[in-house]
């Protein structure tokens, strides 16, 4: 085999944010004349790797080499000088400036930029338009043209096709093919496996911050790619018999339901019902509209269409307070959104008891006892209880859950409650969710860890591109079946 020489070599790159390990150790080689796909589930470390390659964050360990020379970028400018050009998931353009002003800021050569813009039939684009007035697909292409104007050796594209129309994507693919023959290599992050099959030569697969496979794309199928992304099942040591003894809830009454919920482009049509005693799972790749669904269900945002039903009667949630009064409560994905970091654990727990004006002139007599109960039943480590900021991530998550144990609720919305949490606490949270359901709650659980589904849930919904595309019985759901559906391959 006469493979082209390596252009970019990544060896042993590691990165942790605080106690969260984003990349454990990644090795990857991008060769000349190559379009290289970087694949992996949510949280596998793809975006972190892109940030390191773009010089946004330096790596904690490991080395980068470009054309055989060490190139451990410390700043984005160094990365650019080293031949990297990046189009990030969110366009790196300043919203309150015009395109021309943005170009001047980044010192882009206007002639080259113009030339690339022509390639995408955007030559007539008014450069004095404000960035915030332009649609996302145009911004992506502007960002891309700007990256190309740097004349890079390696082009990093993070989920660029997500916002493009089919014919724009088509033009992009033709362009990438041409770049490849001209000697510029491309690293492409995407969730769309069809694209990988069509234009990529090689695929590196990340899982839990490590590269687990490098595949030649020619000659394998999409299913094989999905299998490669799964690998060995995660060992979660389920101390609960949750999955097996999950009570059948088919006959129980529906507590919480949504009908034909929609919100702009992000959520196109979502309907489901959660029964008393049931844990309903929700699975989706990043950015399929799941955040928006949760925002609507908890009252932070109003839907553009559709209804929310609690106990069969329609409800309008104008704010989270309305949802909480109907017993619909949220454990947010970012646990800092549920914590009062400078205040003690017990004050965090009992804040849910003073939500109404008539509760303002006094404090509940039993608040200490209630807080102590929650601390006991969640076994929260209270050694650093004076300030929640000082607790570990797992204990903080327990506090975020505990404040609802103190006040009581009927429907629990959990958005990825085990993200970045150690394995023992994960087990405790699974057991807790099962127990809450057994005590009569309805639980909706979105998770980015597919292995959780059979452990905790009764049923699971799969969301793709703003739609519920599949429903599976959790006990039968495998990572393969869920990932296949999550890629829209049902």
């Amino acid at each position, binding site marked *: 085999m006469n493979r082209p020489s390596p252009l970019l070599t990544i060896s042993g790159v590691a990165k942790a944010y605080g106690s969260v390990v984003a990349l454990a150790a990644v090795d990857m080689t991008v060769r000349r004349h190559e379009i290289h796909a970087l694949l992996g589930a949510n949280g596998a470390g793809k975006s972190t790797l892109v940030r390191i390659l773009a010089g946004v964050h330096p790596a904690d360990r490991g080395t980068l080499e470009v054309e055989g020379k060490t190139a451990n970028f410390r700043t984005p400018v160094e990365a650019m000088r080293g031949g990297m050009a990046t189009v990030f998931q969110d366009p790196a353009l300043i919203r309150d400036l015009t395109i021309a002003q943005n170009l001047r800021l980044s010192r882009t050569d206007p002639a080259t930029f113009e030339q690339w813009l022509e390639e995408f039939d955007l030559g007539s684009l008014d450069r004095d338009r404000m960035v915030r007035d332009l649609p996302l697909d145009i911004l992506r292409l502007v960002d891309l043209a700007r990256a190309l104007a740097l004349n890079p050796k390696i082009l990093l594209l993070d989920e660029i096709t997500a916002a493009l129309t089919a014919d724009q994507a088509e033009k992009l693919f033709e362009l990438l093919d041409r770049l490849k023959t001209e000697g510029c290599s491309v690293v492409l992050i995407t969730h769309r496996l069809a694209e990988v099959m069509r234009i990529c030569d090689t695929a590196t697969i990340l899982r839990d911050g490590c590269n687990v496979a490098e595949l030649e794309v020619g000659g394998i199928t999409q299913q094989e790619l999905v299998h490669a992304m799964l690998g060995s099942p995660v060992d979660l040591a389920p101390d609960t018999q949750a999955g097996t003894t999950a009570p059948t809830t088919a006959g129980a009454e529906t507590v919480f339901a949504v009908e034909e919920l929609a919100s702009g482009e992000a959520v196109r049509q979502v309907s489901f019902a959660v029964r008393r005693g049931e844990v309903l799972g929700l699975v989706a790749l990043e950015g399929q509209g799941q955040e928006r669904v949760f925002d609507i269900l908890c009252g*932070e945002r109003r839907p553009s269409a559709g209804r929310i039903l609690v106990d069969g009667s329609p409800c309008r949630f104008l704010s*989270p307070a309305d949802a909480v009064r109907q017993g619909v409560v949220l454990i947010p994905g970012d646990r800092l959104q549920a914590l*009062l*970091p*400078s*205040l003690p654990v017990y*004050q965090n727990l009992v804040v849910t008891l003073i939500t109404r004006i008539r*509760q303002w002139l006094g*404090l509940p007599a039993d608040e200490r006892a209630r807080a102590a109960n929650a601390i006991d039943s969640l076994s929260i480590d209270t050694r650093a209880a004076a300030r929640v900021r000082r607790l570990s991530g797992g204990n903080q998550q327990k506090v975020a859950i505990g404040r609802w144990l103190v006040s009581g609720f009927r429907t629990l919305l959990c958005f990825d409650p085990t993200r970045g949490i150690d394995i023992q606490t994960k087990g405790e949270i699974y057991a807790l969710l099962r127990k809450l359901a057994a005590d009569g709650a309805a639980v909706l659980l979105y998770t980015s860890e597919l292995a959780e589904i059979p452990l905790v849930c009764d049923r699971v919904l799969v969301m793709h591109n703003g739609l519920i595309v599949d429903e599976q019985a959790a006990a039968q759901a495998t990572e393969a079946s869920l990932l296949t559906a999550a890629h829209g391959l049902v």
Partner: protein
Amino acid sequence: MVDSAAATTVRARLAAKARANPSVALGGVCLLLVLVTGFIEPEYLSLNGARSSLLQAAPLGILAGAQTILMLTGGIDLSVTMIATGSAYVAASQSSHGAAVAILMGVAVGLVVGAANGIGVAVFRVNPLIMTLAMSGIMLGTFTAWTQTILRGSTQVAPFIKELAAGSFLGNRLPYSVVLWAVISLILIWLLRRTGWGRLLYAVGDNETAVRLAGVRTWQVRIAAYIAAGILGSIAGILLAGRTGAVDLQLANAFLLPSVAAAVIGGTSIFGGVGGYTGTILGALILSVLTSMLTFLNVGQDIQQLVYGTIVLALAWGYAGLANRE
């Protein structure tokens, strides 16, 4: 390990003590200032000296209470001294109807303006600095116009208000206004420590999103805070008017910076979530003693303002240092 190594320096040890017990540290500073002032002017170390310092501190302490409540939520009220002045004006113009009506009408000013500030900040999401600064300007304009028209007439306050603000009992030893301040202090401390609303003030200042997701309508908490601050401003203004006997549009102007300074000295963070009224009381006392000291040293208003500004800056820096070490 880091702690024990750092504790070898005196500065770190003092910082640790101050962090563990800020009130004691502040009390120490206050006492030191009293002694220095006594050294400059021995007369000061007497019942009379204490009385005059407390008299000075009472309206300042009440205004600083308004700032404390708002700063705990991450807000501030730059219109509090205009509220005080406006309330004093209204109280003076209504004094012919008797002290009770005058006081009620005066407090109504604080209630209305506070509510307007609160709605602007909590409902229309105007930045508190901008909202209250603009309100201060609006009030100054309005009252300048009104002094020529509807509020024309008496600028003298009712005798009862004068007595309340400047009078004393127990043989001229204990001023009524100091007793009033003590009562207000107890109420404020109770509100902040022992009520759900007080709890929510800290919580909103610490992380509004978490409080909103807990099911609290945070705008209600904020509006109530601005109304409370407005009422405190009114009370302070009426006391000031009673002390001087007559009102003018500059009545409470000089108290704006000190009202913020007293709260900051007392350890309340302008970013919200941290602090309390006990510290603010000590902050007001420290500033009041400092004023006496500067008066005895015969320095003018300009130097006093300079000293206030410097102290606020130094303390803000010091507290930021303490917070970083956590």
